[in-house]
């Protein structure tokens, strides 16, 4: 009896394996610490805009996908080391990154905003001089701060965006520079804080990173982004997180 169960189990797996061998298999990484784009729920499951987009793209491509979490500053090195095949983690398309990896077309666009406590003396970027300003290391916000404000403000770089928020609530940081939408999301839950100053528009486009010389996967994903844009799936996911179109 036991034997037959084992054998039939093997058979069942065998059938599943052959059935899926036809489709594409994509291993996807995200960070898991960048709400609302990618984060973990109470059970440790990855959720968020990026995760939903990744799942929608997989469905569109009829691909079999696994999604794993990877710390941000190792996310490109591990892609190059073939730990996974694509990074859907709100990654900005930058020249420096393009030397190492390829990007699909954008799946949303981004700009930067400063955030600070309501009623603080900080009303514009000029008021930040001599203050502690935080951002996540290895992000366009962190690099923009270092390139444009170094010497004028004290730049504090964090491994995780959530750590920067923690230091703003404890008062270590006078302001944060961040991608606008995650900050928008955080401000909703922390009404004591607000956007300050002007938008920092750096013409930032967010794409999916894949290894170079994997044009097939890149083009498939680019195509799938277009398709979910057209068939309304994208709009549905977008509406779940933001009341405005972020494409």
């Amino acid at each position: 009896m036991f034997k037959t169960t084992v054998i039939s189990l093997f058979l069942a797996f065998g059938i599943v394996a052959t059935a899926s061998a036809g489709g594409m298999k994509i291993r996807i990484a995200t960070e898991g610490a960048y709400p609302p784009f990618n984060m973990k729920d109470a059970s440790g499951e990855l959720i968020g805009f990026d995760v939903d987009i990744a799942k929608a793209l997989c469905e569109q491509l009829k691909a079999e996908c696994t999604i794993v979490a990877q710390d941000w500053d190792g996310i490109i090195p591990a892609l190059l080391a073939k730990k996974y095949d694509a990074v859907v983690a709100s990654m900005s398309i930058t020249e420096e990154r393009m030397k190492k990896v390829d990007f699909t077309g954008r799946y949303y666009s981004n700009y930067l905003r400063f955030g600070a406590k309501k009623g603080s003396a900080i009303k514009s970027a000029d008021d930040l001089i001599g203050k502690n300003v935080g951002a996540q290391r290895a992000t366009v916000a962190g690099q923009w701060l270092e390139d444009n404000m170094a010497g004028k403000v004290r730049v504090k770089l964090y491994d995780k965006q959530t750590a920067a928020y923690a230091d703003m609530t404890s008062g270590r940081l006078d302001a944060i520079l961040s991608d606008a939408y995650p900050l928008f999301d955080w401000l909703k839950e922390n009404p004591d804080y607000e956007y300050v100053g002007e938008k920092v528009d750096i013409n930032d486009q967010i794409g999916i990173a894949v290894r170079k010389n994997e044009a097939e996967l890149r083009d498939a994903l680019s195509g799938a982004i277009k398709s979910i844009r057209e068939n309304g799936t994208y709009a549905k996911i977008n509406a779940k997180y933001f009341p405005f179109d972020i494409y």
Partner: protein
Amino acid sequence: MMLGFDISYFEAKYRASEAVCQIIGPATPQGFADYCPRFVQGTFTTVEILVLCCLIGLVVAVPMALARVSSNKWLSVPAYVYIYVFRGTPLLVQLFLFYYGLGQFEVLRESFLWPVLRDGWWMGVIVLSINTSAYVAEILRGGIKGVPEGQVEAGRAAGMSGMLLYRRIILPQAFRIAWPAYGNEVILMLKASALTSAITVMDLMGQTRTIFSRSYDLEIFVYAAVLYFVMAFMLTYLFRLVERRLKRHIAYP
């Protein structure tokens, strides 16, 4: 005032590293030369933290070791608990607990201590000092126990007691016995200081990770490793030099 001091200090550090790089830059590989001032600045910060935490750690460790070997329970038990708590938990956990944990308390945020506690650099120095003091206290305890009983008895016979006995007989020999183990601890601290990069300190590791986050060239970590190695090598040499002097009475000619 604090801030003014900080900024001019940072500026001074920045200028110094620029100057160093103008001298050594041309002789180094391109990948290093591109980011040379950052590497040098990070190295300065690492040395700064190491020197400070080893000094503070040593100052705390001596009374702690004395308390630990004391026959008075009111002294030895607290010292024992201190040493075992800080030796028994990971340094990274201590850093996070102190840095993010203390920041939660409104009382502390409004106290005069906050300018120090809000700064990652100071928190790094404080936590590393506490951590190393626990290890050094234990190393010193070993040194104190290693002083031959006969010497203590001879000291007593000569009429010394208490502090005088410690100052003249026990501690000098305990330091000599503990010296090699202490050198080891300092080198471990050099490497442990890299953890402070997790609480926004721009030490050598912090700078390296920031540089790496732009270039994604793994060679960046090779340069950091070389810099750490050079520092460790110099420390080893220094400690051996002192050790030779401390042990010259038993050295072969």
